[in-house]
């Protein structure tokens, strides 16, 4: 058990979860105190001692599934033998009779799964998932994969959409379209389908672990933590996870900045109050009293490329900057593709930044010709319309990959802006290695900026924005 635990801790550290030796020891002591046959209690024990941040929980659960999955099969005998006719005896009610595994059709399996889902019976669900994986996944032993494709193949064969509508119909019981009950039925069905998806996923993972061992599989399925995900190449689920991580992130950042500001050095000596306070010490000014600090808050101008390739990066940055806008004197944001539009109004009109970002996508007037980024044109437009508002207090952030589609760079604009502004930064969501390849012209712009910063992950973004205020 200690060996498994060490390997497990090693894997979590590999993912990036910080685990100290003390915590490792605590986990071992916790395992001594609990019933090792109860998988959920073991999970709780390890989770409570090893993972101290909720955003790391998904990574923990994934690794736990991989490292502690084999134990479950023990009580049920060998897997392949179990999938034969012997198991079907347990499926009374499922319309399969005494038939063996191979003869279960997709429809019969679907009917069985629907019943299991409606009853909310986890055992029946696991059984169904096992049969589905046997029938449809076509797992090829020994291949170094994470199982995503097997999952896809199984789920496609099960036809989830059809299962979903059957579940929904069962729950809605003829409620009119658009009514509350219909909506609840839909959400309910979605949750049950999600449960099925997870059961199938767990089953595939269990077989892969049997095939290749936990550590090998862990390497295949390993995924970075939300704050370390590459913004440009994140999948939809990962983007959603990052969105969830962004809210607490920005709140913490705002808190930290506010605290830093309040604590820092104090203002000028307040003579009147110092003299007044000296009365109590016989006119000797023992305690000098200072005026409350009035640190200057910077103004932030964000000029963001919102064309397809970098749109999600721009979205995250705008959300983060506006979420902590109280830390700045003023935040104005501009978005461009090959036209340019000010987006500040969307954030001002709506109290929900997420909604504001949505409105930028639909309402901002950013396309001029063809919807391909033209940095030169966008910068020239900015210069002619807004450069007057840029003052010595303004920090200008340009967001984009500097992939200019071979238009004119117009780098002189940056020189002009930089001479007016406090500082000019360029944030590039591409990995540094790709800069200046193809139509990327970072090198042309870089000499005109105070700094060009690689900003691929939320962590890097947070660190940069934190350094501004």
């Amino acid at each position, binding site marked *: 058990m200690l060996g498994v635990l060490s390997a497990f801790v090693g894997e979590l550290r590999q993912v990036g979860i*910080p685990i100290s030796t003390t915590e490792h020891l605590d986990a071992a002591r916790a395992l001594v105190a*609990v019933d090792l046959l109860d998988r*959920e209690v073991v*999970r*709780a024990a390890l989770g409570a*001692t090893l993972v101290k941040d909720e955003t790391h929980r998904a990574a923990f659960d994934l690794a736990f599934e991989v490292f502690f999955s084999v134990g479950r099969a023990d009580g049920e005998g060998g897997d392949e033998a179990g999938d034969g006719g012997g198991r079907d005896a347990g499926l009374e009610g499922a319309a399969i009779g005494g038939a063996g595994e191979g003869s279960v059709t997709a429809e019969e399996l679907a009917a069985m799964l629907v019943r299991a889902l409606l009853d909310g019976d986890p055992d029946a669900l696991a059984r169904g998932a096992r049969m589905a994986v046997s029938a449809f996944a076509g797992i090829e032993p020994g291949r170094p994969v994470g199982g995503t494709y097997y999952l896809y193949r199984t789920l496609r064969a099960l036809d989830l959409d059809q299962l979903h509508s059957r579940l929904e119909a069962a729950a809605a019981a003829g409620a009119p379209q*658009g009514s509350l009950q219909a*909506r609840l039925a839909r*959400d309910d069905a979605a949750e049950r389908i999600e449960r099925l998806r997870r059961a199938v996923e767990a089953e595939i993972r269990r077989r892969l672990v049997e095939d290749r061992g936990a550590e090998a599989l862990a390497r295949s399925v390993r995924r970075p933590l939300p704050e370390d995900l590459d913004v440009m190449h994140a999948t939809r689920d990962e983007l959603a996870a990052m969105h969830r991580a962004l809210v607490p992130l920005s709140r913490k950042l705002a808190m930290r900045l506010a605290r830093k500001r309040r604590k820092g050095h104090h203002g000028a000596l307040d003579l009147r109050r110092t003299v007044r306070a000296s009365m109590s010490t016989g006119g000797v000014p023992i305690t000098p009293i200072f005026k409350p600090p009035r640190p200057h808050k910077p103004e932030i101008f964000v000029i963001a490329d919102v064309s397809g390739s970098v749109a999600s990066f721009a979205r995250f940055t705008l959300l983060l900057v506006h979420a902590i806008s109280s830390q700045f004197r003023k935040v104005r944001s501009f978005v461009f593709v090959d036209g340019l539009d000010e987006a500040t109004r969307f954030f001002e009109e709506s109290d929900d930044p997420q909604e504001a970002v949505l409105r930028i996508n639909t309402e901002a007037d950013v396309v001029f010709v063809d919807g391909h980024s033209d940095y030169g044109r966008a910068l020239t437009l900015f210069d002619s319309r807004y450069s007057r508002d840029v003052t010595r207090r303004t920090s200008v952030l340009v967001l984009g990959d500097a992939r200019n589609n071979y238009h004119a760079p117009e780098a002189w604009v940056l020189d002009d802006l930089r001479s007016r502004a406090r500082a000019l930064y360029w944030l590039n969501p591409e990995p540094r290695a790709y800069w200046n390849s193809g139509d990327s012209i970072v090198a042309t712009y870089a000499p005109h900026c105070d700094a060009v910063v690689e900003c691929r992950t939320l962590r890097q973004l947070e660190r940069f924005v934190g350094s501004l205020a």
Partner: protein
Amino acid sequence: MSPRPEVEDPLGLEHVREPRFSSPDEVGAALAANRYLADPQAAAVVYLADRLVKPVLVEGPAGTGKTQLGKTVAEALGARLIRLQCYEGIDESKALYEWNYRKQLLRIQAGQAGSDRAVEWHELEGDIFSDEFLLTRPLLEAIRATEPVVLLIDEVDRVEVETEALLLEVLSDYQVSIPELGTVQATQLPLVFLTSNNTRELSEALKRRCLYLHLGYPDVERERAIVLSRVPGISPALALRIAEVVRSLRQLDLRKAPSVSETLDWARTLVVLGRDELGDQDVADTLHVLLKYQSDVDKAAKELLGNRA
């Protein structure tokens, strides 16, 4: 339940300590008896906290029962609850102990007035820095208590990072050092809960000393059970429907998702209004009990009820 090896007492305290619970299930049952339906994970963590003698750091969205967990454990154990409400600017004189200097001053003056000869300084010093002049604050109180105690340190994320250090000695060694008196060791080991709303990152040192528990929103089954146990006179069908509506609301992208306590408020409202069923109109009329922003109410009405208003 098979007999388990004893967990070595990491603090090396001589006295034998009886475990308060024998299994996670027992924790769950004890909490349920006090009308707190814990998820299995929470029960397991409370059980471990007792066995490993470690504090529990409870995080999660507002209104999911973090504080209530500590209170209910105290109730279930019949222990005294000592609560330290944290706020920005709390210091050791509010959290640990304070010398009652007014009383000390009186003592000195009384000594001078009472007799002709000046009181020996040593005598006096020993006297004014004694128990009699010590004002205990929650942390010291929990350490010195002789009866069973549950210590609840609420909203620990509100204290400054520097002040967190005050807690560390109590949390890891269950002792408080007072320079004038020496070290006060715990005579019984209090069960400690810290709650945090996650407004800032707590220090590594604090997290390392604690077991971590995240209390999220419950699933439909558990929420229904919570509503049933907490709201008298509600019908099971209505409780289920309430839980389902709340689940759907939490899936929407709202500024403030409804918490469990808001669900309970809503359920009570519906009971007071005498509803047994939950029609579209009832939801529309009472949505503001659940949601605290007008934009959220509009969004929810649009999504759930199909109002295009």
